[in-house]
């Protein structure tokens, strides 16, 4: 390490150094000491003074104080800044958890009330003689989707083609075509084909299909019961598993799935299941329609049409 002042006589200077073009790096690495120290020392020597001054001058001490204060202030200012963020974060997490608990409590309340309603319906049906037996009521509820149902059935899974999976750089404009994306129309066709094949109840990704259900697009997301779904889309149906599989495979649904997978690379699968449980629909009810009371007029005709429009 050169500790000389590094000022070379330009006339008798040494031979050209190989790294002459890298003066910035050379200066940085070879003369790390501020050259003004050397200059000041030379100046003092020329005046007959010793080259170095003492550290004990007021200037040096005040500067040392200043440097120390700077270090101290920085330590205090820069460290707590990260600690400050954590209580805020904790508070936000706390809020999220509180709201989630509130939502859970609300959901539990809805379920309790729903079961209370169905109990009342049951007793009303038994007592008032509306012409509906408890069994009929059960059938109605099952078909309307207001109760959980379980049984054997068929599971149809659709997933976006592999190429559209998180388009590498996450940029939606990288020209990857959207052909491989499952559309709401695909789900509508599959759902209708399953109803036609004899499905008794159906749910997509845990959303029960009822007479109020719409399968539609909002932007790029598929909404069922106004809830956005994420792929893969799992259509669970309850019914006679073997018959469903046969009827679905031979009908329009099977052909449509084949077209989807061969033309667009959409991943599909059809599997039978011995035991499926479909959740109850979250919200169902009529706001405007009022049923006719038995005394007022003829009792409402009970018509069970399993083939609901799924679109």
């Amino acid at each position, binding site marked *: *390490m050169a*500790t000389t002042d590094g000022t070379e006589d330009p006339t008798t200077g040494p031979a050209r150094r190989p790294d002459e073009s890298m003066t910035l790096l050379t200066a*940085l*690495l070879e003369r*790390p*000491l*501020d050259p*003004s*120290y*050397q200059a*000041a*020392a030379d100046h*003092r020597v020329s005046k007959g003074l010793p*080259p*170095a*001054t*003492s*550290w*004990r*001058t007021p*200037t*040096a*001490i*005040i*500067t*040392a*104080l*200043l*440097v*120390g*204060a*700077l*270090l*101290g*202030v*920085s*330590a*205090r*200012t*820069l460290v707590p*800044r990260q600690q400050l963020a954590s209580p805020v974060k904790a508070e936000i997490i706390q809020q999220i958890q509180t709201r989630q608990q509130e939502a859970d409590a609300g959901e539990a309340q809805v379920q309790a009330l729903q079961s209370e309603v169905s109990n009342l319906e049951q007793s009303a049906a038994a007592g008032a003689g509306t012409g509906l037996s408890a069994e009929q009521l059960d059938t109605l509820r099952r078909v309307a989707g207001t109760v959980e149902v379980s049984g054997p059935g068929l599971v149809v899974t659709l997933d976006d083609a592999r190429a559209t999976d998180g388009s590498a750089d996450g940029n939606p404009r990288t020209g990857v075509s959207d052909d491989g994306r499952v559309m709401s129309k695909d789900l509508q066709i599959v759902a209708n084909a399953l109803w036609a094949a004899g499905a008794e109840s159906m749910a997509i990704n845990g959303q029960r299909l009822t007479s109020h259900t719409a399968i539609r697009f909002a932007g790029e997301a598929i909404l069922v019961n106004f809830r956005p779904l994420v792929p893969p889309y799992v259509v669970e149906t309850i019914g006679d598993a073997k018959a469903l599989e046969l009827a679905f495979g031979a009908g329009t649904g099977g052909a449509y799935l084949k077209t989807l997978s061969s033309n667009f690379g959409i991943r599909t699968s059809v599997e039978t299941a011995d035991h499926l449980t479909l959740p109850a629909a979250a919200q169902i009810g009529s706001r405007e329609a009022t049923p006719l009371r038995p005394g007022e007029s003829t009792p409402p005709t009970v018509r069970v049409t399993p083939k609901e429009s799924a679109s």
Partner: protein
Amino acid sequence: MIPIIGLVIGIAIGVVLNPDVPLWLQPYLPIAVIAALDAIFGGIRATLDGIFNDKVFVVSFISNVIVAAFIVFIGDQLGVGSQLTTGVVVVLGVRIFANVASIRRHLFKA
């Protein structure tokens, strides 16, 4: 010895007083710390070389801090603040290491 006591007292003052650094000044604090460290090690090295000068020490400290902060400020205005911060840290860091290496040679002859 006295300057070291001064340094320690300064640190104590800074920690105890804990003044509120305005938010616009906070991005420059890390740079100022690096510049201050550079000035300190430069001063120690100069002492060991026998050419320490208090005026140069003060001026190098203040100018280091101001120039480093100014470069970062300019960088912020140009939208390359973080890159220039890195540049300042690299340059001062290399200097600190070289100075420390020299101090080490003085003290331990190794």
